[in-house]
């Protein structure tokens, strides 16, 4: 454990406290590992959106039975479960066309994003092929007029 601060002598202060704890017959408690300070990894939007569209394309599928609430929240979960058990056939009928539409949206996004990825790769390749043409050595060979 470290105590951080320009106005304190962290090591001396920690030593003083730990000595006092030992004298009181109390061992310093172990703490969890060091504080996380790294940045979160970025999330690729294309694959995230594709996965999300696949996950949620079928509106007749129930959401997971979970709640962050206690007490009455549990009773509501039970009511939802009962509703699903007894009414799934009507849910399917009501949302059938939405399911088809969502499927088309997912497929359209998948095709378009695949095309975007292919075009990005092609642009990258073209740029890398073009790069030597504007190299300084090549530029110097141009006539003054061309420059």
């Amino acid at each position, binding site marked *: *454990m*470290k*105590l*951080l*601060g*320009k*106005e*304190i002598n*962290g090591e001396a*202060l*920690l030593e003083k*406290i*730990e000595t*006092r*704890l030992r004298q009181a017959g*109390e061992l*310093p*408690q*172990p*703490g*969890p*590992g*060091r*504080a*996380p*300070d790294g*940045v*979160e*990894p*970025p*999330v*690729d*939007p294309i694959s*995230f*959106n594709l996965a*999300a569209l696949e996950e949620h394309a079928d509106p007749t599928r129930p959401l*997971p039975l*979970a*709640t*962050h*609430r*206690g*007490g*009455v*929240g549990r009773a509501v979960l039970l009511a939802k479960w009962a509703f699903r058990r007894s009414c799934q056939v009507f849910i399917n009928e009501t949302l059938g066309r939405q399911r088809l539409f969502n499927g088309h949206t997912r497929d359209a996004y998948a095709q378009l994003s695949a095309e975007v990825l292919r075009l990005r790769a092609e642009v990258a390749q073209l740029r890398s092929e073009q790069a030597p043409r504007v190299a300084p050595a090549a530029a110097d060979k141009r006539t003054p007029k061309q420059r």
Partner: protein
Amino acid sequence: MRVHQLLPTFLPGDATGQSALHFGLLLRRLGLHGQIYAGEVAPQLRALASPASELRPQAEDLVLYHHGIASGLSSRLLHLPCRRGVIFHNISPYPTYRGTALAGALLGGRAQLAAMAPHVQLAIGVSDFNSRELKAAGYSNVHTVPLFVEEARFTREQLSAARLRRLQGPPTLLAVSRVMPHKRFEDVLRLHSEHRRRVPDARLWIVGGYEPGSAYFRGLERQARALGGVEFWGKVSFAQLVAAYRSASVFVSMSEHEGFGVPLLEAMAAQLPVLAFAAAAVPETLGGSGIGFTEKRYNVLAELVVELCQDAGLRQRVLEGQRRRLQELSPEVALQRLRTALAPLLPTVPARKRPAKKTRPRVAMVVQRYGELSGGAELLARMVAQRMAPHWQLTVLTTCARDHLSWKNEFPEGEQREGGVRVLRFPTRRTRELASFNSFSRRLYGHPNERAAEERWLAEQGPDSPGLLEHLADAQDQYDGYVFFTYLYQPTALGLPLVADRSIVVPTAHDEAPFNFEVFRDVHERPRVLFCSTPEEEALIQRRFVNHARTRIVGAGVEFPDADAERFRARHGVQGPYLFYVGRLEPGKGIDQLLEHHQTLTRRYADAPQLVLAGASGMTLHGARVRYLGRIEEQDKHDAIAGALGVVVPSRYESLSLLALEAFAQGTPVLANGASEVLVGQLERSGGGVTYLDTDSFIQGVRLLGEQRQALGARGLKFARLHTWERVVQAYREELERIVERGR
């Protein structure tokens, strides 16, 4: 070019909304105008932000989108036909919420962050920690503009002694944040438990919104009940928040993730030692101040809390370090960073044409209303405009409003010439609902307030005229200098920062409740010079704003028009001695008390003078020997003053009484409210009248006027002769010349 801000929600107490207001403040100080737009706007904040659906930027505009968890506005930003920027406030860590409905929004927010990267020209992290995430997500042109707090909002002086007394007690830990799992309040409770073992009556206050039904909160509540000494305050008013900071012993944060950590700075501003787990951006925000810790060893931390409470030397050193850190994260530092970030996107402004030495400088005078209307500050502005017109190429920038209570548009919009002065009028956007405005004002007076509340007050106070502010921002190359009249209204409070370094402000300030609002700090600290009307006004400003701009006492000049008392008596059928008042007839001007005093006088003395009142009335005026004349002509006013036993000035809120000067000019003594420092000062310096504080002193004053009218009047006239317009005109010319010289 406008710089608009776009954010998902604009709700009371919302951290992103507060940062949008702070960015708005910085943008104004950079001379840039723009609006705030939000996906969801709380009804009470509609004066400050418009629905996102109304955002229609021009190609040269910049829209800064405040990004956090997933929002549909992220997709909208990509398709806005203008330049785009992102302000990143960070996103809570996804793994803490795995399996909950929130997880999708957190992960989706990160996906949106990466998706926007190729489509924006500017990315701003509110900490270097956030900026690193922006770079990792593919952004270029990344800048850090740190958040800040307005230190003066956290002073003890603004809190009532009763409120602080109620919170006094044993050593208290304070944690401020919305109650969410990644903030690790269970760890705060464990620290409190260890603290209670050492200090059995120790308290823990947890301030911040929570969901009472959530399993997480119910678990915390159970633990808290078992421990004792824990209070969940929930969402509180700003005054309560400041009182909590000012009454606690140590601020503690156990959060596992902070993109910045505004409460850390708030605690520093309230001079409360900070003890914080050094996770994510927390070490950067602390910047070596406070005490950070890298492991949660609760018995060690509890001992540290005891040290901070008992070792005065340690506590003092920590507080000094925190003061240093606040300076490093001041609004001025944020302003410099934002200026650097925006510089490549700002249009290249052609250099302003500097006026040649012999040409008259181009000056804009900004005032909330202009024309033949009642109101001391407006009258002063008009008198100055008419006298400066021969010396300057003067344009008056004002609204179409005639009535300061409603701000209803009554004058035609656009350019007119009035008395040789060019006047540009802009319409107001809303009228004022006086009853709800007064009720809202009462809630704000006498407490510390957050910026959102004061800016809402300012928007409702009005006059809300976006066209006027846009003109100030857009036409900066058309004027060499500016003169703003009256601190109290929106055109000055929001317009002055746009052009502060070329401005003279005539604040006409007096000791009234809104004068203590922080939202008026720029008006008194940023102009080139403040023209005060009296030494009392100057002293008031110097007491309230320690870093005030340079002050100069200028005031108004006095004229000596011919007057005929008999003409007034004949015209209105007034006989016998009378007291006279002309101006706005409102309770705020002390008219209700004046009527009470006069009625008592009339009941006690059969020969009591009449009370003759003139001007626009906003109240019922009746009583024995009271005459109300309505609005009267200028000449009629001077005739009335000349014939009066005395002129009454009943308002306690005055920065300069023009009416008193007009009375002196006619050799008529003044009977003034002694609760006004300014009036007392004016009468002490002139010897031209007497003051009253209650009914008895009012009656005594009337008697004195009867006995010594001539002597008092002569002294007032002598004083008036020293106050010439030539002196005033010279002061305006000198200060404007200084501004022009600086620009040459």
